[in-house]
Every structure is written in structure tokens, then in C-alpha cells.
């Protein structure tokens, strides 16, 4: 009847919301203009229609022959129909039938669909299969024509017809709710409740149903709108309450006959019907939180005045004349929000490997991605300089950066399995950039692609070229990603946790591949890792990052052998990798608390809240001190600690770990990390 498919409800298969997080649902709904409008108009129409006999100015059948087809007037607010009947009275008298019969359809649809979904989710695959097959058949039936067939058999009885429609629609309801019920059931707390001996009914009532409430509400609102359109459509075809009873569909049908002489006639009824359906859909949208879907995706860049100004200071006088990459005082911030990285400096020579290490949320990835200008939307470089072969990259326009990406600086990412385009074969994905970078024909590009794959240790290159990403293993995918990064023969490779998502044996293979590339091609690498083993394995230099700062830097050897910053000591103490020839420690050290999120960093030393050696003087800001030759360390007590031969040893069993200074506030463990993780 309507142009809306019954499956439209599928679109809103939103994630289930655990009960605890639903509390803000209602105010959130009312913050959206669409939600306010939807709720208000629906309430108005429902109340006005159900109470119409009490307030309507005229009887719906009362004819005012002097005032036929009248425009709105003080007497007839919405005008009159061809028999001079009052439109306002007729519209709202007609309202209760579509509203109530759509409600009946909803009750039937959910009355069948919801229990079926719960049963299918609970009873496991076999039951689910049977129910799902049956509903698939139902979904494929032409609902509209079946309804007409039903009317042909039982006559114009709207309530039974809508109840049957409810049965047909229950298949769509089931399909959406099954997905939600299954994912709720997989939650740990549902398992826990079952283990605790709650009966099946109670588990469903207490845990599963509340989590499904949002999805049910969204679906109900949407289906309600569809129901209204179908009732009106049936009445339009003449399958509604007959004259003189008013109905929305028939009033529009009636109006279509007078469109030459009185076009106004179709406006009030059509508008009320349209607004009611719009209201139901807007309410559904607001419930699903989809109104926010239209967020601007356009990138807003803050002007980089600070960056350019800062870059002007060390201009022409790089600290290390041999450095190809020179990062000075890099600051990365959320637009109109907190800083994510502050004052980070490091440099890199050709053919060297620099490691950025630290816990998650320390700004390593942001630092690495800023080298290519690939920060997430709403995050940008707001200070400092990134000099690449004498060129300033910070603040470079997108088009300029695009010329550098791939050709001079390339990147491989954390998760090789999702880093490749799932829709295209490996050959297509390699040939495109090869042709662009090396200006060769298709067949030669294909040869180069195979050669690149062999260079990264893929033996059956021909087969891999024909494969799609989902057919590759993680290690294989990462090799392909490395080959992809090499298509433009870059001089710098930024590797963001390149081994984290891989198996341990594969990790070692990828690292040795990177090492071989550095050795054979003179590639420079910036590698991000939380794993000190990786650093020890492959890096020449290292910068240890904590809470957006580089707290210690220097050659990998010096930093790992003689850590000067307590955080580096702690990381080493917590590292399960044991160098050869040393005894395996009985216990590993731990670091109390978590990294403070951006925006809540303490003044002074940002590690002080978790540091065993923290004292009151650690709470005031201080500059970085030179260390490890060309490196630096950001700790005011570095000399004292070095005199005392301080080490971050494992705690004895049973010891409570106390962060050092009592003057410091404990780290806020509950605050979210501003949605940006390292």
C-alpha cells in the first residue's frame, strides 16, 4: 500500500543498550527537535481523535449546503467538503480508526515477533533455523496483495485485516529483534544471571527485555507510521468504512475528484495524515539516535599560526644535520578541546629506526599519524614543527601532503585485516598505486606487484594477487600492507603497532622483514609500539611517551640499559621479555593506576600520580634535561635517582602498591579518554 517496504524497520537494527546506560534516554530524546515534534504531534492527534465526539464543532455527517467546498473560515476552521460537511470534525472523527487499528497491528506483530525472537535466541541454532526459515517465507509474501485477497474473502473488516497484517509483519519484527536478543544473550551479565540460577523467564524479563526496549520502541514507532499509511491506502481504494462515515483515505480519494475546482480540499486531510506518519518516523529516528547521523564530516582545520611560528625558531639549524626527520615541540589537540600531545621532539636519520613506546593513551599513534597529516576528524597539529628533508609538513595543505603520502612517507597500520579494501583483489589494490607512482602500464605494474610481494617474503605471489583480503591470514595481510606501502618507494615508513594484532611467531617474522628492508633499502622507520621487546629488537633510537609527552629519549641501547625516567624503569620492570642470561623474575613489576586522560593531566610531572619516587617538587613544571647523549629526560629528580641507583622492582606478594606522594590527587580512573586512544 505504501512505498515503505516492511523491511524498512531493519534499518534501525540498533545496538542493544545495557540497562544501566539507558537512563539518559528520555531527556536525550527531547533534546532532538524531531523527537519533540514527533512526540507532541502524535500525542495531539491521538488525544484529539479519541476525544473528537466530545469537542468537534459539527457532527461529521452534518451538511451545510450553503457552504460547499468552502475555504477555511471562522465557522469551518479547515473548510468544508463537497457536501458542506466540516473538515475539521471529519478529520479527527476519522482518526481513531487508523490509530487504533495500527495499534492492533503493532500488538499482534510484537505479540508474535518478540516471544519468537526470545525463544529462538534462547533455544539455540536448531530452533532458530526453523523459525527463521518460516519467517523468511512470510517476508517474501506480497503483503499488500494478500491483504486485498483477504478483503475479497472476508469483506471490509478493517480490524481483522490489520491483525492479519500484524501476523505478516511479525516476521520483520522477529528478524530485527532476533539479532538484538542474540547479542544481548552473549553479554556476560546474562550468562552470570543464568549461572546464578535465574529461570529462563526471569532472565528474559529482567535482563534481555530491558536491553531490547530501545529497539522495540524504534520499530514500533516506525511500524505504526506504516500501519497508518496502509489503513489510509485501503480506505483510498474503497476498502474502508463506507460513506457517510469519514476516513482519511477516502477523504483524499474524494478530494482527488475536485482537484480542478477546489484543490484546497486535499490539503487538510493529506497534511494531517502526512504529519502523523512523519511524526512517527521522527520519533523513531530520535529514539534510535539517528538524527545525529548528519554530523558534518567535512574536516575543520584550525589555522596553524602557532605551528608556523614555532617552526620559524629552529629554522635552518636542525639539531642534527644528518636528520631526515626533525620533530620539534609537536602539539596535537582536539579542536576546541584538550591537547593530546604536547611538546614532543625527536629526530631520525636516514636508515634508522625510531621507536615510540608507552602505554595506550599516551599519544604515540597521534604523534605518528601527524607525520602524514592523517589525524582523525576534529584533531589537528596546533603547534611545533615537523621537518621532513628540510620541508615543513605541519600546516601543509591537503593537496601538498597528498603528494608526499605514499611517495616519500608511507604507513602501515595496526590491523592488517581491515587495512585493505575488502571489495577489491590484492592485484587491483597494488596495481593502482604502482601505476600512479611509477607511471608504468598495467602489465608492467602487475609484474612489479608480484615482485614486491616476493620481496616481502610471499612465495606464491601469483595466488595472493588474485586473492581478496578476507582470504588472507593476518601475517600475510600485513606483508601485503608492507608491499603496498613500498609501491611508492618511500624513504620513511611509519609503522603503527605493526605486530600487535598478530601471533607471536608471525610478529617475529614481520619484524625481521622490516629489519631487512631497513638494511637493504636505506628506509627510515618510525615504529609505534607498547612492547619494549620490539624496541630492543629493531630500534636504533627510542622515545618513551607518557600522557602526551616524550618523557625520555635517546639511543635504544642507552635507554633500555640505563633508564633515567621512573616511567621507563617501570615499563622495563613490567616487561615479561627477559634478556638472555638473566634470571627469570618471580614476579613482574606493576604500575598502579592508569594513564590520565587528555585534559586531566596534572601540572608538573604527569607521571607523578603513579610514580613511586614522586615528591612534592614533582608537582611544579620543569624543563627537559639532556640525557643519553643527544637524548633527553623529563624528570626533576633524575640526578638524585641516578645517585640512589633507583630501580622499579616488583612488589612483594600481598603488598598494596602505594603511589608516592600524598600531596597528589589519585589518578582519575573513571574519566573517559576523550574518545581518542593512542
Amino acid at each position, binding site marked *: 500500500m505504501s512505498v515503505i517496504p516492511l523491511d524498512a524497520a531493519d534499518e534501525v537494527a540498533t545496538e542493544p543498550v545495557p540497562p544501566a546506560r539507558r537512563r539518559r534516554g528520555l531527556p536525550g530524546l527531547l533534546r532532538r527537535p524531531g523527537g519533540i515534534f514527533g512526540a507532541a504531534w502524535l500525542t495531539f492527534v491521538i488525544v484529539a481523535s479519541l476525544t473528537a465526539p466530545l469537542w468537534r464543532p459539527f457532527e461529521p455527517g452534518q451538511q451545510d449546503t450553503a457552504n460547499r467546498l468552502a475555504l477555511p473560515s471562522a465557522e469551518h476552521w479547515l473548510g468544508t467538503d463537497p457536501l458542506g460537511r466540516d473538515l475539521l470534525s471529519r478529520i479527527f472523527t476519522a482518526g481513531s480508526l487508523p490509530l487504533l487499528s495500527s495499534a492492533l497491528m503493532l500488538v499482534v506483530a510484537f505479540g508474535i515477533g518478540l516471544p519468537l525472537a526470545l525463544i529462538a535466541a534462547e533455544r539455540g541454532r536448531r530452533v532458530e533455523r526453523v523459525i527463521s526459515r518460516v519467517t523468511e517465507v*512470510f517476508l517474501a*509474501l506480497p503483503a499488500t496483495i494478500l491483504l*486485498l*485477497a483477504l478483503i475479497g474473502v472476508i469483506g471490509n473488516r478493517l480490524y481483522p485485516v490489520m491483525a492479519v497484517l500484524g501476523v505478516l509483519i511479525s516476521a520483520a519484527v522477529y528478524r530485527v529483534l532476533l539479532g538484538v536478543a542474540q547479542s544481548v544473550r552473549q553479554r556476560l551479565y546474562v550468562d552470570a544471571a543464568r549461572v546464578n540460577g535465574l529461570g529462563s523467564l526471569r532472565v528474559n524479563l529482567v535482563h534481555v527485555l530491558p536491553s531490547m526496549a530501545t529497539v522495540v520502541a524504534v520499530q514500533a514507532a516506525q511500524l505504526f507510521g506504516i500501519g497508518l499509511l496502509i489503513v489510509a491506502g485501503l480506505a*483510498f481504494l474503497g476498502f474502508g468504512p463506507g460513506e457517510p462515515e469519514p476516513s482519511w483515505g477516502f477523504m483524499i480519494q474524494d478530494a482527488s475528484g475536485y482537484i480542478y475546482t477546489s484543490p484546497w480540499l486535499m490539503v487538510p486531510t*493529506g497534511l494531517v495524515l502526512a504529519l502523523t506518519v512523519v511524526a512517527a518516523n521522527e520519533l523513531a529516528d530520535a529514539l534510535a539516535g539517528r538524527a545525529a547521523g548528519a554530523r*558534518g564530516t567535512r574536516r575543520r582545520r584550525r589555522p596553524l599560526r602557532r605551528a608556523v611560528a614555532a617552526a620559524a625558531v629552529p629554522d635552518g639549524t636542525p639539531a642534527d644535520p644528518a636528520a631526515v626527520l626533525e620533530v620539534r615541540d609537536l602539539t596535537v589537540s582536539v579542536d576546541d578541546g584538550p591537547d593530546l600531545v604536547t611538546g614532543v621532539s625527536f629526530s631520525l636519520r636516514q636508515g634508522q629506526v625510531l621507536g615510540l613506546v608507552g602505554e595506550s593513551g599516551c599519544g604515540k599513534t597521534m604523534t605518528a599519524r601527524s607525520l602524514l597529516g592523517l589525524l582523525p576528524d576534529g584533531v589537528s597539529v596546533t603547534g611545533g614543527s615537523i621537518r621532513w628533508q628540510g620541508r615543513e609538513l605541519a600546516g601543509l595543505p591537503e593537496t601538498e601532503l597528498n603528494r608526499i603520502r605514499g611517495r616519500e612517507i608511507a604507513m602501515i597500520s595496526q590491523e592488517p585485516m581491515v587495512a585493505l*579494501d575488502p571489495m577489491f583483489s590484492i592485484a587491483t589494490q597494488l596495481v*593502482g*598505486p604502482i601505476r600512479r607512482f611509477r607511471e608504468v602500464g598495467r602489465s608492467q605494474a602487475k609484474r612489479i606487484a608480484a615482485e614486491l610481494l616476493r620481496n616481502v617474503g610471499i612465495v606464491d605471489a601469483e595466488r595472493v594477487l588474485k586473492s581478496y583480503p578476507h582470504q588472507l591470514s593476518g601475517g600475510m595481510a600485513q606483508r601485503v600492507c608492507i608491499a603496498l606501502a613500498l609501491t611508492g618507494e618511500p624513504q620513511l615508513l611509519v609503522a603503527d603497532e605493526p605486530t600487535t594484532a598478530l601471533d607471536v611467531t608471525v610478529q617475529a617474522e614481520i619484524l625481521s622483514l622490516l629489519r631487512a628492508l631497513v638494511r637493504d633499502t636505506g628506509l627510515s622507520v618510525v615504529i609505534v609500539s607498547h612492547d619494549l621487546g620490539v624496541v630492543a629488537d629493531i630500534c636504533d633510537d627510542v622515545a618513551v611517551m607518557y600522557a602526551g609527552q616524550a618523557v625520555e629519549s635517546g639511543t635504544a641501547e642507552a635507554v633500555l640499559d640505563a633508564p633515567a625516567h621512573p616511567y621507563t624503569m617501570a615499563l622495563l620492570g613490567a616487561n615479561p621479555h627477559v634478556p638472555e642470561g638473566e634470571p627469570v623474575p618471580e614476579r613482574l613489576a606493576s604500575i598502579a593506576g592508569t594513564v590520565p586522560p587528555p585534559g586531566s593531566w596534572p601540572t608538573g610531572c604527569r607521571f607523578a600520580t603513579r610514580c613511586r619516587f614522586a615528591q612534592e617538587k614533582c608537582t611544579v613544571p620543569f624543563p627537559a634535561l639532556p640525557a643519553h647523549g643527544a637524548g633527553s629526560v623529563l624528570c626533576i629528580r633524575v640526578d638524585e635517582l641516578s645517585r640512589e641507583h633507583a630501580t622499579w622492582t616488583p612488589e612483594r606478594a600481598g603488598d598494596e602498591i602505594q603511589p608516592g606522594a600524598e600531596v597528589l590527587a589519585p589518578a582519575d580512573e573513571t574519566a573517559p579518554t576523550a574518545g581518542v586512544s593512542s
Partner: protein
Amino acid sequence: MLAYVAKRLALAVGTVLAAVVIVFLLVHASDTTPGAVRAGAGATAERVAAENEALGWNRPLWVQFTDYLGQLVQGDLGTSLVDGRDIAADLADRLPVTASIALFATLLSGLVGVFLGVTAAVRGGRLGRLITTGSGVALSLPAFWVGILFVYLLSLQLGWFPATGYTEFSSDPLGWLSSIAIPVITLAVGGAAIIARTAAAGMREALTQEHIRTLRAMGTPRWRIRYVHALRYASVPVVSTLGIQFIALFGGSVIIENLFALPGLGQASQVAASSSDFPALVGVVVVATVVVVVTNLLLDLVVAALDPKVRTS
């Protein structure tokens, strides 16, 4: 793959069978009998009984059912109770009308919807919000009301197209196109709105994928990232929705054909429903179910062709 195709085919046959069973039972549960319909109003009870006897209505249900199935397999849908016309031939004449309107409307929805949805996702901002809100309203509008508005605008005010009626393609191709223009545009309003939403959501999701970042890191031109890679990623849900759309428009044809006086399947089902012409009702349901099932099968094939994960598994 073969097992998959076999399963889909089995489901398709099962669906058609289910539809036949449902309408067959429905007709037999009715309190009117085909004899009464054929004899017309005011016929004597003897006359009705004689008609029922002649139609084989009094035979056991399963005999009638297997009989009907046997005829169905041979493409025989019986004759109308009202005017005795051959139903299969009648529906064969009507099918192209409905199918062409639904097909054109689907294509138009696809073109307009993808354009709007991609624009909303890529441009974002105020324009994106406008498109999202506009499509939310458009998909809620009753097609018959929109149709009347278009008749008022495009036919009465601008005089571009005829308001109602159908011209045979064979007699006047241009006139045919012009006669289905307003119905197609009317159906495409809601269709385009749904496609726009799907395309916008798909593009937004696509643009946040990790592999898009890889492409950016490779210095891939922006138009290529958007219109080759992201659009390809979003194409699977869009094509699925287009298939559902075609089915929905096919069903929606009842109203449109009534409004514009088009001799299609929808009109046939309305007439059959209001006159209780049982064989015609069953016939329409069977044909409509076959169309839905065939569309779904084609859709599966297209999705498999688009999505390497489906294709290679």
C-alpha cells in the same frame, strides 16, 4: 556455492507454495461461495448450488488443491467468475504495465537517492542535514496524496503530462512514456528517500573504515577514495535496498494504478477483491509472489557479484 543456490531455490519454491496454500485456504474459509459470485446478486439458492457443483466446489479440499496445483504448473490460472475471461492471459497483459512502472520508479529512486545520499555523506554540514531531514519527510508521505499533488502541479498547472490513463507502448512509445511519467515520479519520491538514507549511512560507514585511511596514507586522490572505494563499499546495502524497493513498489502499484487508471496487476487485484472473484484473487497472489521471489533470487546474484566475501565463499 551450489548448495547455496539450491537452498535459495528451495526457499523460493516454498514461498510460492505457501502463498498458494494461504489464499486457497482463505478462499475456502470464506462464507461466500464461488457459485454465489458467478450467479450474481439475487440468484436463487438452487442456482448457486448448481454453479458450485459445476465449479467442483463440493469436491474434497485436497482434490481441489491438487487439481489447482496441476493446472498452475501448466500455467493455467482458471477463468474469472465475473466475466469468464482467461485469468492467465489477462494477468500476462497486465504484468508489463506494473513491472515497467515499478522498474522505472526503482531506477529513478536509485539515481536520485544515491546522488542525494552520497552528497549528504560527503558534504555533511547543513546540506547533509537538509537531505537527511527531507528524506525523512519524503518517505513518510502517502503515495496517493503525493500523486494527486503531482497531477495538480505537472498536469493541471504545467501541462507536461496527462493526468490519468494509459497509452500502449506499441501504439505510441512517447505517449506511453508520458503516460507513466507521473506514476513513476510519484513512486520515486518515497523510494529515493529510502535509497538516500541507505546510501548516506553506507557512505558514512565506508568513509570511517580503516582501509580508507590506508588509501589516504597512500596519497590516493580524494575523488578516487570517495567514488571508487567508498561508493563500492556502500553499494551492497544500496543494491539490497533497491531490490526491496522494487518489491515494495510492485505492491504499492495497487494504489498508483487506482489513482492513475492504469490497467496493471494492482488494478486487477483491487477489482478481484471488491467482486470476490476468487480465481482472479488467487492468480494475482501467485503472480505477485513469483515476481517477489524472482526479484529476491536476482538480488542474491547481484549481491554475490558485488561482494567478494559472498562470491568466493
